[in-house]
Each structure stands twice: as C-alpha cells, then as structure tokens.
C-alpha cells in the first residue's frame, strides 16, 4: 500500500504557470490522490476479504486491518479489541504497531464506562473521540490516562464494531501521539475498517460455534454409537458422518456405494437388506435391524432408521441414523442366559426338597419289579411250574419297569439345563406331570388338592420345561404358605381356564395370605418371606412368564390364603402338542385328598 502511495504523481509546477494553472494543478492532484486512495482502499478491502474468505485466523485478519489503516492514514496506531460478552471483557485484542506492554493490561479488561474509551463506545454503541487525554477532565486521574500517556499517546478514538444484527462485537481504536480528531478521510477509513472487522469477527465466531456444534454432534455420535447418513437413491450418492464410517469400519472419506454397504451385511441378512433397498425407491420409511460382518470377522448388530424426502426434481433422498446396538443385543442374550441359569438354580434348589418325591416315585415301581421277579422265580421253580402265573408277573414287571423309566424321563427333562425351546405346550398335561413329581410332598404336607382343568384348553407356545418350573414353583409356594395352617383344611386348587384368547392357570391356597400392598414385592429378586428361602423363585417365574408374553401376579383371596395366577397367549388349536408324555391327562375336575403322615 505504501508503494501505491509512492505511485501518486507529484507534478512539479512550471515556472510559467499562472495562478489558475496552479489551482487546476492542485485540483487535478487532489482528484488523482482521491482516485489513488479509492483504488488503494478497494485493493486493501479486497485483500482483507480474501483473507477472511480463505479462513485465516481472526488475529491475523485483525492485524492486517490495523496495518491497512495505518498505511492509509499517517501517524495513526490501531488496535482491535473483540468483546466476550460473557464477562463482559476485552479478549484477544491486537495492536500490531504498539508495544506489547500497551496491549497486556487491555487483555481481559472489563467492558465498563470508566475502564477505557472503548468501554464507553461498546456500551453506548457510539464512537468516542478523546482528542487529548492529558487535558480531558473525564479521564483525569484514571489508570487508563496514565497508561496511554506512558506510551507517548495523546488522542484516542474508539468506534464500536457492530454485527448486522446490531450486537457489539468489539471496538476499533486509533491512537495518535498528538491531540487530534478524525479527518473525513480517516472517518471514512474507520467506517470501512469497522465494517470489515464485523464481518471477520462474526464469521470467526459463527465458524467457532459451528465447529463446537459439530464436535458435540461427533462426540454424541461416538458416545451413542450412532452415525448419520444421507442417501440419494437415484444416483446412489451417500453422505456419511464419521461415526457411520466407523460403524461400517470403512476409512472416513471412502466413496460409498450400495455395493460397499452390502459387502458388510451378514449373509443371512442380505435378503432383508436387499428388500429394504428395493422398497426405498418408493420412499418408504426405513426401520430395520440387521447384522454387519466387520473385516476381522466379528458381528455387529445395527438398527437403521431413515425417512425419505424428495428434492425439487422429485428424487427420493433419505436422511437417517444408524446405531450400533451390538452391546444391547449381547446383553439381551446374556440376560436370557442368566434367566436360564437362574431357572436352573431355582430347579436345583428345589431338587433337595424334591429328593424325597423322586425316591418315592422311583421306589414304588422298583418295589413292584422286585416283588414280581421273586414271585415269578418261585412260580417257575414250582412242580409243576406255574407258567401262566409267571407270565403275568413278568408282564407286571415290564409295566413297572416302564413306569420307573417314565419317572426318570420326567426328572431328566425337569432338571437338565438347556437352552429355551419353543413348542406347543398343553398346560393341563404339563401341570399333571409336575403334580406326578410332587405327590409325595403334597401327601406329607396334608394338602387337599382339587384340580379344575378345562377340557378344551387351547395349547400355548413356549418352553415346556420353563413353564413347568413356574407351575412347580407356584405349587411349592402354595404348600409352604400352608405349613402352619392347622385350623382349616390345607386346600389347594389348581385351575386352568380360557381367558379371552389367553390361557390362565391359577394356584389358590388357604395359607397365610399376603399383604395386598406388598404383593408386587414378592416378585422382586432375593425378596423372600420364607426362612432359608433364596427369593429367586417368584422373580424367575415372572421373568419366564413375561418372556412368554404373559403375566404373572398374586392376589389375596376373599377368604384365607392367596392366589397366584399367570396367563399366556393361546396358541392355535390345530397345533399338535410336541410331546405327549405318559402321564394321563385329567380333563375333568376331580378331587384327590392326600392326608400326610408326617405330622
């Protein structure tokens, strides 16, 4: 810019020129000067705007602004002081031609009327001109006056830098070593500089806010394992966030195509994803889960949600999010495993109490077998041998052997831990099997059992053994609740019935009953009212029933005792039960009175 100034033609006056000619010369010189100044200002402005547009750091741009002014207006020193309104204070100011000792105290200076002319300019939103700070009574005795004078400065002109919206972004300050006021040329430059400064500061702050927002978004995507994407279906253009690249494990910036996406999809899910893609052409909303196989062979579960929009040409474009739900799915699987293990623990803890029943159930047919075999031997050893009698006892031996075998089969099913299976289950039959194993306990506890089983009960779909575990648990709870009952019959009613498209099983006891307000607490893990109870039976039972899309609850009876019941969605009637064990089906209500001998 200085070079531009040196290009100003300095015309030497002619010895013969007249006064008029001098005036003409001066006029021409002034015009030329104005033209050069305008040209210089335009070039400077262009250069500064280029700096801003190219994203140069704000302090660099502000320093360039100061130098531009200083070059265009002689004997001036400039400073630009952006304001942080959170303080409010002056922050990150620049004054390239003043010594660092001048700038240091300005950094962090509060924006107040008494702090500096810049403070008044910012607060009043108006230009403040201090022609001579040495004699200005307003600043007499102030620290600011001393600071300015110490640095050999006398006049201070401060102009607010305002955004288009009218917010003061900072101040532009000009100092001179002698008392002075801004000339029209200087004022025009000040107006030009504050305008460019407002663009620079505004843009820098918008960019900082955008970067901060992008950083928050990227961090949120990273934390929530959620990526965002855009997809223009017609030309297969994809716009992915960094997190989406990370989820698919492609390098950020890799040009994405459907082919690349499908390369990562689990082979068993390819069909589903292809179908989703095919439907996407119509602009259907996307909501699907699938698995990805990463380059190291591990499997990710992802949930994709996207909505379609249409551009001006009517082309479908999706904006969506993809979330890595692997941890969620794995924890669900782990929960299922824990549930299965808990159910197993509950079964095994029941095992001790059931040992007597097991021994009883096995020893009964064994007794028959041994007695029949002894009889058979004797019949064959007789003279003459009683062949017909021996045949009959052998036949009974076979029958009792099969009976023992059935008992073992039922026990194996009940006490072997295995993964949950889904099959059609006849709840009546399942209940009968559980009762067959509990006969001894019922007898010992002098329980009067009444069965009211619905003949036409539809089957349910689920895990037979898990459901039997629930029935066994409810049965044992009912027995335990009646242990101390001696003033009334220990009546236990097990009822199955249809309930509006569902199958309901209820176990009604005449025991100690329950506090209606505490009924829900019974289903909490490790909550127990029993001495030595673990408190997992009912919570596991509810967990099992809920995993079968059913409900399990407890309610006090009108009379003594409580009723525990569950409902399960009824399966289709035409589904044949997957397994029919030897236990006879009781499809009619009957009474069975077991009076125990243990007391």
């Amino acid at each position: 810019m200085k070079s531009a100034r040196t290009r100003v033609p300095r015309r030497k006056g002619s010895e013969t020129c007249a006064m008029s000619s001098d005036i003409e010369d001066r006029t021409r010189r002034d015009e030329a000067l104005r033209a050069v100044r305008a040209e210089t200002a335009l070039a400077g402005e262009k250069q500064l705007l280029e700096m801003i547009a190219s994203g140069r750091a704000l302090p660099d741009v502000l320093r360039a602004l100061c130098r531009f002014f200083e070059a265009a207006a002689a004997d001036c020193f400039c400073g630009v002081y952006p304001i942080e309104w959170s303080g409010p204070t002056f922050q990150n100011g620049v004054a390239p031609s003043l010594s660092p000792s001048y700038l240091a105290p300005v950094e962090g200076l509060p924006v107040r009327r008494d702090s500096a002319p810049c403070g008044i300019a910012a607060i009043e939103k108006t230009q403040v001109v201090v022609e001579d700070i040495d004699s200005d009574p307003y600043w007499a005795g102030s620290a600011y006056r001393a600071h300015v004078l110490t640095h050999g400065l006398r006049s201070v002109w401060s102009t607010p830098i305002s955004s288009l919206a009218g917010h003061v972004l900072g101040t532009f300050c000009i100092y001179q070593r002698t008392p002075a006021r801004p000339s029209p040329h200087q004022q025009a430059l000040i107006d030009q500089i504050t305008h460019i400064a407002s663009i620079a500061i505004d843009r820098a702050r918008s960019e900082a806010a955008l970067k901060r927002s992008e950083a928050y978004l990227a961090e949120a995507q990273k934390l929530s394992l959620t990526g965002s994407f855009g997809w223009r279906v017609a030309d297969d253009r994809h716009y992915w966030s960094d997190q989406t690249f990370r989820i698919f494990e492609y390098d950020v910036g890799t040009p994405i195509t459907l082919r690349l996406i499908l390369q990562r999809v689990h082979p068993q899910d390819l069909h589903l994803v292809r179908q989703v893609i095919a439907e996407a052409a119509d602009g259907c909303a996307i909501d699907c889960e699938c698995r990805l196989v990463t380059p190291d062979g591990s499997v990710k579960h992802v949930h994709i949600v996207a909505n379609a929009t249409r551009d001006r040409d009517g082309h479908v474009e999706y904006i969506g999010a993809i979330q890595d739900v692997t941890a969620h799915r794995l924890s669900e699987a782990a929960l299922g495993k824990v549930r299965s293990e808990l159910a197993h623990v509950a079964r095994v803890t029941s095992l001790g109490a059931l040992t007597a029943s097991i021994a009883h159930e096995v020893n009964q047919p064994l007794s028959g077998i041994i007695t029949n075999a002894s009889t058979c031997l004797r019949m064959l050893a007789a003279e003459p041998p009683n062949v017909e009698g021996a045949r009959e006892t052998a036949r009974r031996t076979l029958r009792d052997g099969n009976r023992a075998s059935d008992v073992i089969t039922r026990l194996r099913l009940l006490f072997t831990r295995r993964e949950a299976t889904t099959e059609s289950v006849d709840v009546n039959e399942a209940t009968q099997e559980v009762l067959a194993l509990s006969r001894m306990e019922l007898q010992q506890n002098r329980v009067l059992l009444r069965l009211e089983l619905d003949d036409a009960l539809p089957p349910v779909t689920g895990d037979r053994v898990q459901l039997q575990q629930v029935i066994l648990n409810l049965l044992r709870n009912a027995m335990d609740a009646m242990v101390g009952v001696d003033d009334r019959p220990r009546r236990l009613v097990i009822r199955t019935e249809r309930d509006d498209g569902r199958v309901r099983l209820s176990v009604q006891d005449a025991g100690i009953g329950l506090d209606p307000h505490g009924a829900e607490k019974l289903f909490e893990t490790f909550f127990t009212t029993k001495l030595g109870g673990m408190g997992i039976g009912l919570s596991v039972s509810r967990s099992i029933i809920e995993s079968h899309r059913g409900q399990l609850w407890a309610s006090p009876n009108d009379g003594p005792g409580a009723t525990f019941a569950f409902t399960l969605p009824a399966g289709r009637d035409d589904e044949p039960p997957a397994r029919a064990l030897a236990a006879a089906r009781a499809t009619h209500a009957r009474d069975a009175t077991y009076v125990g001998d243990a007391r």
Partner: protein
Amino acid sequence: MATRSLVSVVDDDESVRESLPDLLRELGFSAQAFSSAEEFLESDSIARTQCLILDVAMPGMSGPELQRELRQRHHRIPIVFITAHRDDPLRPRLIEQGAVDCLFKPFSETALIEALTVALRLN
C-alpha cells in the same frame, strides 16, 4: 392241610397290591389287598388277619393313623410297615409304637420273610 395265615396288604399303589399278595401266596400265606386304610377297616378281614403289611403314606387315613385306630379298637395285629420314602423319619417311632418292622421299598424277599416270621411268632 393246615390253614394258611392271612396276611393283609394295605397300599394305595396298585403295583404293590398286585405283586405282593402273589408273592405271599407263593410263600405259603393267604393274602388280601386293600387300597386304603378305610377299606381295610370296613372289611371283615381284620379279625382273621395275622399280619398286616401297611404302607406309611396314603391318601386319606395314613398307615400310622390306622395303627392307632387298630390299637384303639384293641386289635393287636402285628404290623410290618412299608414305605417308598427311604429317609422316613417316622421309622423309629413306628417301631416304638409296636410295629414289627418298617421295610423300605424296594425290599428283598428275604427281608420280607424275616419280618413275617417275627410277626407270626408274635401271634
């Protein structure tokens, strides 16, 4: 031919009611089976029974309850209890209250013969 001693069997388990009388007959006894204590009490066999083989746990009246009932009616029939419950805690009390023995199912022919021998000796 000498009159055979009558041994009555009371058990709710059908296989016992079928198999045990047959074996008893093979051993030279006369045998009758009843499915419950009540059925036995209502029968006319009580006076003739020289040994009662009695299941401990049954629906309705239990074996020990029948033992008490018979004592109250002054029937001194020797009783051999049988039970499928191996750790039956009642065993010592049953013996204490006059039972000849308490056999655990499944029991051997020898154990049965020994118990019957003792029982019939008491007659």
